[in-house]
C-alpha cells in the first residue's frame, strides 16, 4: 500500500511539475467558462425552464473537451516512460505491474478532479448574482459532477490503455481519441438517430449524453455507474496485461 501511495504521489506531482499541465488547465477552464457564459446567455434570453447547471452539463461545449481530456491527460503516462527508458528503472524496482498501472490511473483521475474543481466557482457566481434557491439545486449539481467523474474515469482508463501500447505520445493521443469518440458517438447515433425503437432503448443505456442529462437533472441511476466503473476496470485490466506482456515475448 505504501508503495502504491509513493507511486501515486509521484504521478500526481508529475502533472504539476510540467508547464504543459498548467497550459492545459487554462485552456480547459477557458472553454468551460465560455460554456457557462453561453448557457447563462441562452437561458437569459428565455431558453425554457431548465436549471443553469443542468444546461451547463449537457451543452455541446461541455462534451467537446470531455472527449479529449481523457486521452490528453494520459497519453504521457506510459509512452513517455517507454521513450525515455525510465520504465526500466520503474519495472526493476520492487513494485508490481498492477500497482504501477493503478497509481498512474488514480494519479490521472486525481488530476482530472482537480481540473474540474475551479468550475465550482460557477455555482458561487450564480449564488452571488442572486439566483434563487429554485435555480440552484445542490443535489443535482452534485450528481452532475458525479456523472462527470464517472465518464472521465472511463475515458482516462481508455487513454491509459492506449498510452501503454506505444512509446509515441501522439499515437497514444490519436488512438485514445478515436476509441473515446467511438464509444461516445456509437451511443449517440444508436440512441438518437435510429428509428428502430428497440435498438434505441438498448442504446440509451450506453449513451453518455443521456446519462448526463439524467444525472444533471438529479436522477442518479445505478446502471450508468456500473457501466462506467466496469468499463474503466476492463480497460485497466487490459492495461495491466499489456504491461505484463513484455514478459511473454
Amino acid at each position, binding site marked *: 500500500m*505504501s*508503495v502504491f501511495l*509513493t*507511486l501515486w504521489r*509521484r504521478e500526481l506531482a*508529475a502533472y504539476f*511539475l*510540467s508547464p504543459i499541465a498548467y497550459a492545459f488547465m487554462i485552456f480547459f477552464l477557458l472553454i468551460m467558462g465560455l460554456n457557462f457564459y453561453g448557457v447563462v446567455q441562452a437561458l437569459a434570453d428565455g431558453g425554457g425552464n431548465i436549471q443553469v447547471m443542468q444546461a451547463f452539463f449537457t451543452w455541446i461545449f461541455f462534451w467537446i473537451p470531455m472527449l479529449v481530456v481523457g486521452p490528453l491527460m494520459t497519453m504521457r503516462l506510459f509512452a513517455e516512460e517507454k521513450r*525515455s*527508458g*525510465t*520504465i*526500466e*528503472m520503474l*519495472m*526493476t*524496482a*520492487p*513494485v*508490481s505491474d498492477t500497482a504501477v498501472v493503478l497509481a498512474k490511473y488514480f494519479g490521472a483521475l486525481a488530476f482530472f478532479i482537480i481540473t474540474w474543481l475551479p468550475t465550482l466557482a460557477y455555482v458561487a457566481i450564480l449564488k452571488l448574482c442572486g439566483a434563487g434557491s429554485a435555480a440552484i439545486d445542490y443535489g443535482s449539481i452534485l450528481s452532475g459532477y458525479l456523472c462527470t467523474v464517472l465518464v472521465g474515469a472511463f475515458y482516462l482508463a481508455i487513454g491509459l490503455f492506449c498510452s501503454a501500447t506505444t512509446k509515441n505520445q501522439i499515437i497514444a493521443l490519436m488512438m485514445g481519441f478515436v476509441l473515446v469518440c467511438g464509444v461516445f458517438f456509437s451511443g449517440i447515433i444508436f440512441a438518437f438517430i435510429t428509428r428502430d425503437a428497440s435498438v434505441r432503448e438498448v442504446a440509451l443505456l450506453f449513451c453518455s449524453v443521456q446519462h448526463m442529462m439524467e444525472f444533471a437533472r438529479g436522477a442518479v441511476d445505478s446502471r450508468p455507474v456500473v457501466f462506467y466503473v466496469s468499463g474503466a476496470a476492463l480497460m485497466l485490466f487490459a492495461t495491466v496485461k499489456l504491461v505484463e506482456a*513484455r*514478459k*511473454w*515475448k
Partner: protein
Amino acid sequence: MDNMIEVKNLTKRFAGCAAVNDVSFTVAKGEIVGFLGPNGAGKSTTMRILACYLPASSGEAKVAGFDVFRHSLEVRRRIGYLPESTPLYPEMRVDEYLSYRAALKGVGSRRRRARVNEVKELCGLTDVGRRIVGQLSKGYRQRVGMADALVHDPELVILDEPTIGLDPNQIRQVRDVIRNLSPKHTVLLSTHILPEVEMTCQRVLIINRGRIVASDSPEKLRARLQGGREVIAELRGDKGVVAQKLYQLPGVTSVTAEEADGWTRFRIECGTEDIRPLVFEAAARDGWTLRELRQEKQSLEDIFVALTRTEQEST
C-alpha cells in the same frame, strides 16, 4: 548458499536470433565481477534478465536463491540496478528523486533521509541535492543513477556500463565506490573499457556473441592464454651470432630481431620457464652490451581480442 547469482543454460532470443546463447555462470557473495564483451555481445541482455526486466527464453537465473521469473519481487528487493543509458525523471530534484526511489524500494520513512544523505556522500552528490535532474551534466546524472542503485543497500549491485560518459577523475571515483562495496555487496558490472576491469574486478567474464568464452581472474586469464612467454632483449652485438646463441637457450621457440639506432631488439618466444637470467648470463659471457631485458605482459586487451576473434572465426 554461497552464490549470489546462479545462471544455468540461459538463452534469450529476439526474433529468432539468440542474443544470449546457453550461458551459465555463478557469482559468489561479495565478489566483484566484470562482464566484458564487444558491443552487442549480450551483456545488457543478461543483466536485464537478472534485473527481472526481460524474461529469458529458456534456462534459469537465480539471485540470492530466488528465481528471477517466479520470485521477481523478492529478487528486485535485493538488487540495485543501473541500466545502460541511466534513465531518470528529468523534472525531479536530485533529493526528491532519491527519496522517491528509496521509498519505492522499501526504505522506511525514518531511515530514508539518512540513507539518501549517505549515498549522496558516497557518489559525490552532496552539492547538487537541490538541482533538477534534467539540468545536470551526464557525469552527475550517471552518479545519481549509481546513488539510486545503492540507496536501499542491496545485496547485489548490477551496473551496466557505470563509467560511460565520465571524465577520468569521475571514473576513478566510481571505481573507488565500487571497490568499497566489495565485502558487503556483490557487484556485477559490465564495460568494454578493459583497464577498468583489471583495476576493479576480482573476476572477469568475457562474453562474445551470446556465449561466455572465458571466466577467471585477470591474472589467471593472462597466464592461461599466454601459453608461452615473450622476452624482449635489446642489446648491441652481431645480429646473426646473437640470434643463433639465443635460439640455443633451453625452451626458446623463435627469435626475431629488428635493428634501430645501432641497437638490436630481439623478441624471444619461449616456454613457460623464465629465461631472463640465461639471457643475461649469455650477454655477460659474450660481452654483449645489454640495454633492456624484460618480459612482455600480455594485456587483458590482447586476451580479449584473441578470445573474441577466434570465436568469430570459428563460427
